[in-house]
């Protein structure tokens, strides 16, 4: 756990960090995001003491970093910066070996470790004798990442590492980071100004504004429940459509009026159907609201005896969805089952709502309709 306690930084009269307190969980990718000048990079650099604090404390696993030698501290923390910061007068091999040398790794292990890390970050061995300027931007930044990982630190700080790359390279490096993280489970603090990037790679996002933490939470939480108008405005109202997996069944279901109970007679059901101008009813338990099945006009018409209870003829296998099922999942289910509607249940199988074709259209249409409203 990395704990920041009332961390303040002041340049003269200009307070860049206003008493920030945060707990960053281990083994996660945590993005710090915000507009330029919000203090995100400053905050990052206080963690490896590139920038000294004015007041406050930073603890890594309970140890106050102020009590550690800054050089020793930095050697334990991986560091990746935007323009790669590779040393232009050294080959790739030498760049990587420099870090090992700082760690007093035995020379005999250099070759093995360098080979391993180069494979890991998706580079080829033949790049090793080259100079950074001979590599593409993406390759350079892979080396930058390799340099941070080669000593196997628990904590890695990344300061806008992919901002200078073209979108395709950036996306592939983001994928790379996610892939590596699945293997390595490092704690990565990642500064970015790109919300899509933050949402894509982070376990937690820390949104900063003018030296304050505006909000801290999972990408999903921040997207679905922006805590302040600033957050909502920052992420953009339609941002969530870039991450449809965060749109859940509960967000698009509609409440249903066409309900009946298992013991209701078919006659009564028929009446209800006619009254509400629907062609089916949902059968739920009266006390628990537990979902039982469906009856529709076709099923009722087949019956001679309209005094039978609904429970006797209701249809059992229906398309259901859980509250937390995501939009892409629902859409694929709808497509697979060819059903015009889905029943949304909670974990206790209680009926919660309906997703119909029209409610789907309405939900999907919101990203466009909202926009026109905004204009």
């Amino acid at each position, binding site marked *: 756990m990395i704990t920041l306690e009332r961390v303040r930084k002041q340049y003269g009269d200009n307070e860049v960090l206003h008493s920030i307190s945060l707990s960053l969980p281990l083994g996660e990718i945590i993005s710090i995001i915000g507009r330029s000048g919000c203090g995100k990079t400053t905050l990052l650099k206080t963690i*490896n003491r*590139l920038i000294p604090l004015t007041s406050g404390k930073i603890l890594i696993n309970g140890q106050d970093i102020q009590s550690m030698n800054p*050089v*020793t*501290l*930095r*050697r*334990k*923390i991986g*560091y990746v*910066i*935007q*323009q*790669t*910061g*590779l*040393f*232009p*007068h*050294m080959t790739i091999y030498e760049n990587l070996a*420099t*870090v090992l040398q*700082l760690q007093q790794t035995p020379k005999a292990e250099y070759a093995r470790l360098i080979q391993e890390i180069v494979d890991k970050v998706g580079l080829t061995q033949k790049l090793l004798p*080259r*100079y*950074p*300027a*001979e590599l593409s931007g993406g390759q350079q930044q892979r080396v930058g990442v390799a*340099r941070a990982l080669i000593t196997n630190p628990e904590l890695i*700080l990344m300061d806008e590492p992919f901002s200078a790359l073209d979108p395709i390279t950036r996306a592939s490096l983001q994928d790379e980071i996610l892939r590596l993280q699945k293997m390595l489970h490092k704690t990565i603090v990642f500064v970015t100004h790109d919300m899509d990037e933050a949402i894509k790679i982070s376990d937690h996002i820390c949104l900063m504004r003018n030296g304050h933490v505006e909000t801290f939470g999972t990408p999903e939480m921040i997207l679905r429940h922006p805590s302040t108008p600033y957050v909502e405005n920052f992420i953009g109202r339609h941002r969530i459509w870039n991450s449809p997996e965060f749109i859940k069944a509960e967000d698009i279901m509609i409440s249903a009026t066409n309900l009946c109970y298992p013991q209701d007679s078919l006659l009564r059901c028929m009446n209800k159907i006619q009254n509400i101008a629907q062609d089916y009813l949902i059968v739920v338990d009266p006390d628990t609201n537990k979902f039982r099945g469906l009856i529709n006009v076709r099923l009722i018409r087949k019956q001679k005896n309209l005094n039978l209870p609904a429970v006797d003829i209701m249809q059992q296998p229906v398309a259901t969805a859980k509250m937390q099922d995501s939009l892409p999942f629902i859409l694929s289910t709808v497509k697979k089952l060819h059903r015009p509607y889905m029943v949304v249940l909670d974990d206790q199988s209680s009926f919660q709502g309906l997703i119909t074709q029209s409610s789907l259209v309405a939900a999907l249409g919101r990203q466009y309709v909202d926009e026109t409203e905004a204009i």
Partner: protein
Amino acid sequence: MDIFSYLFNNGTQIWFLLIEHVRLTAIAVGMAILVGVPLGILVSYVRPLNKPILGLTNLIQAIPSMALLGFAIPLLGIGALPAVVVVFLYSLLPIVKNTCTGIGQISPQILEAAVGIGMTKFQILYKIQLPLTLPFLMAGVRIASVTAVGLMTMAAFIGAGGLGFLVFSGIASLNNGMILAGAIPACLLALAVDGGLSLVETLVTPLSLQPNALRDPAGQRRRNRIKKGIVCVLSAVLLFSMGTSAYHSWSRSANVIRIGSKQFSEQHILGNILKELIEDNTNLTVESHFGAGGTQVLFEAMQKQDLDLYIDYTGTVFVDILKQPPSSDEKTVYEISKKEMADRYNIQLLQPLRFHNDYALAVSPEVSEKYQLKTLSDLARVGSQLTAGFTLEFLNREDGLKGLEKAYDFSFAHVSGIDGANRYIALQSGNTQIMDAFTTDGLLKKFHLQLLQDDKKFFPPYYGVPLIRADVLKRHPELAALINQLDEKLDTTTMQELNYQVDEEHRPPSVVAHEFLVQQGLIHK
């Protein structure tokens, strides 16, 4: 051609002077690197020091080199030390400035990464900053070295030797071959230094910072290996030649007499005569500081104990050093000088030599005829119509122009300061009509000039007189008798003849001196 015959006859001397030149330059630039690089680093780290230090090095560079050499004499004496110090001071600026600039241009991103991965300040300095500064640093060293090679020719002015010795001597004796024999190697040396260091410059520049290298990295690496080879061979040759010459001078330094001379031919001949005479007849070795800028330089050196022996002239000692009013009573001049020099400066005057080399004014035969000039009194009549070209020393001495104009009560229409043999050229070309000369000057004979008779006996007599430091004479009392042998053999006519051989026939002073000594049976070889 002058130059080829000169080169042919004096190959060894030129080679020796070249090596000496290289050695002095290398020491000076080497020291400048040792001091300048840390200073440059300091300046780039401690910003407030930037202005004062760069300002100071700038200021030093702005001082004329001759003036700086002049300042160095009272503090450091003559010879190699002041020359090296002066060149060192001049070399500082480009090195300090380029080091500072080089460190300043390193991208802050790179430095941040270096700090971020946990390098200590010192590691950052020698792993990142110095390698990335090297190309700038080498450019500075290159500028400094090329300048230093040129500047070092000035060092001959204070008796440090080097190729400037040939240039100054050549100017003094109007020997173009000799000037070129000094100037051309100096020029080639500067070009070679520039070329060699530019190779080093590319070698120390990281491949990635060479704009063309990355198009063909493999080829560049191959070329670099070749360049490395060249640089290694060059530096090996340099070190070897410097090492042998350093060993040479070290091995000789045990029992040494240091002899000086002024710039003109007669002084070179006298210096060489003393040198051979002493080396042949004693077990002492002689370190020569020939061709120094004048009485003041040599006298300062004597007082600094940088010099043991040289031949000056009675009148010069009397007027210039002891600041006495000019007098033509030779006996009194010598007696007073001998006593005063011993009392005040602890310098012994040996017995004066037979020849005297007085000041005289010379005119061309045409001018002499046109104005009917025979004596200085004749000159006083028409002086106001004539332009004179005098040496700087003559212009400033009490027994020179100042006293002369007073004694004969006249003044010239125009007076220019022209040093060395160039006065003869000026007179020959008609730019001046009158010049100062020494009565023994070989060039008088060459140009057929007419000396004007000093009918009022204004010019004091200038007998050659060996000056030796009293403590040296005490250690080596045999020197007095040895040098006094010269007395009879070296009369004015002989001296004139020897000067003529050097000035007109362009024979090296050392050869002329040697022949003289053999002829007179003063040496046994």
